[in-house]
């Protein structure tokens, strides 16, 4: 027998091991669901898979009587648009701020403390002000995401910029580069893949802010729907929506990871 630390499963058994917990979860869920529905057939907490299937069927494949839209897809589109815009703004701002504070001693002195403090403010607590300033339209939802995420990205990019060996900056200068050229040719291209990584890392918080914003002021979106039907505790809608959000988050992450690999072959 090998020591536990040296015992590696074969590829096939690793796959099986990886799937096992999911299967167990499913089994536990259906047992719990059956048990509760046994006692009270109208129980809403743990709907059966059939009930969830019905709900999806209704939301995704039948047009809404009210608006004629397919709510599920409409929600998905709205949420993804908001999330995408918010993350895009956060990434752009974070890049500009982080790059400046990371590379320019003057910018660091001026803004680094501010960014640190802002990153500690819980943005949810400021929601009312945010809504007043940005109104209640799409802007405020995008703004919440952007405001929540930008400081984290800016700090990460600052750290990453500082990690770029100063040798490279010196070398560029010995080749005659001015500050703008060092930014555009040496720093920026090297930070792009790191920016994507940091977008990946902060995406989870992005979803949180999106759902919170949609819960308060919205007329569609995945978070809106979850909060709307939460009043009736329609877990048969909530659970598939949560599952769908998880899947979307996974796919987005995968996409960014692949993009990084494809676009920046020299990275890692």
């Amino acid at each position, binding site marked *: 027998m090998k020591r536990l630390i040296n015992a590696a499963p074969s590829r096939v058994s690793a796959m099986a091991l990886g799937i096992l917990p999911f299967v167990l979860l499913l089994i536990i869920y259906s047992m719990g669901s059956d048990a509760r529905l046994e006692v009270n057939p109208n129980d809403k907490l743990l709907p059966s898979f059939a009930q969830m299937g019905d709900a999806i069927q209704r939301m995704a494949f039948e047009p809404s009587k009210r608006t004629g839209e397919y709510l599920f897809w409409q929600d998905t589109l709205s949420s993804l648009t908001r999330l995408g815009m918010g993350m895009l703004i956060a990434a752009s701002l974070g890049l500009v701020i982080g790059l400046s504070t990371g590379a320019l001693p003057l910018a660091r002195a001026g803004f680094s403390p501010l960014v640190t403090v802002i990153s500690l403010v819980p943005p949810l607590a400021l929601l009312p002000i945010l809504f007043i300033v940005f109104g209640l339209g799409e802007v405020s939802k995008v703004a919440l995401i952007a405001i929540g995420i930008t400081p984290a990205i800016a700090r990460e990019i600052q750290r990453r910029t500082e990690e770029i*060996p100063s*040798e*490279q900056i*010196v*070398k*560029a*200068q*010995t*080749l*005659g*580069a*001015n500050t*703008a*050229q060092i930014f*555009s*040719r*040496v720093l920026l*291209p*090297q930070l792009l893949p790191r920016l994507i990584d940091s977008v990946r890392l902060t995406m989870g918080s992005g979803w949180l802010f999106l759902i919170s914003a949609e819960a308060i002021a919205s007329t569609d979106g995945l978070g809106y729907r979850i909060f709307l039907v939460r009043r009736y505790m329609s877990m048969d809608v909530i659970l598939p929506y949560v599952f769908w959000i998880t899947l979307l988050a996974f796919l987005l992450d995968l996409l960014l990871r692949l993009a990084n690999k494809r676009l*920046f*072959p*020299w*990275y890692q």
Partner: protein
Amino acid sequence: MIAIDNVNKTYGDNVVLERVSASVQEGEFVTLVGASGCGKSTFLKMLLGTEVPSSGSLLLDGEPIPNEPDSSRGIVFQQYSVFPHMTVLANVLAARGFLQPGITGRLWGKKRAQALGDAKALLLEVGLEHALNKYPHELSGGMRQRLAIAQALLDQPRILLLDEPFGALDPGIRADMHKLVLRLWKQHRLTVFMVTHDLQEAFHLGTRLWVFDKIRHDPDAPQAWGATITYDLSVTEVGVDEYQKMQEDLGQPIPPFSLVS
């Protein structure tokens, strides 16, 4: 060409260099040796302009050395001297682009064609003609340093500074690099300053060898005194005895001939 007059360098209480004086002619190949931490890199940084002397003067053609790096002085470090996100060719082309004014330093049209020709010629010279489209991480350590040298030379600097450029390379690869450096030095009429830990290397390459060491030493306050140039030798004058003595001073191994012959 370069006049160093009574230069001192301190970091806070830490006296690194003390009363360093020397003058160097155009075309000399100066190798710098000395114990770790004695201030060789600091000295190079002053020549480069990223550090300034605490006192004393450092003149280039009679003018104080500019306090920022510029294209008159090329440098190759032990590591990180090339841009990891550019291919070999792009690394060298960037050197030309950076001479342009403007924000991106990209080359277009005729200028680009010209630069492309120069870059390829130089890469042929350093033996990287087969790796034009590779990224640095795909190169071996030796190839990476060749690239760093080619990049530093494209803009024809007058002075080339080398800070342990081969320190991380296998001995087997060094020999080739030595040949390359000597060839380029002659061909491009460079003035070279090279820091190394390897006395053999220092002798093999340099026309002039500087040993940095502390002359005064206070065991209770090792930072109180700085190092200076304790030997300034024209390499061709050194005899076997003197060489062996220096080798022992620096604690370097005796070559194995005594064992095997």
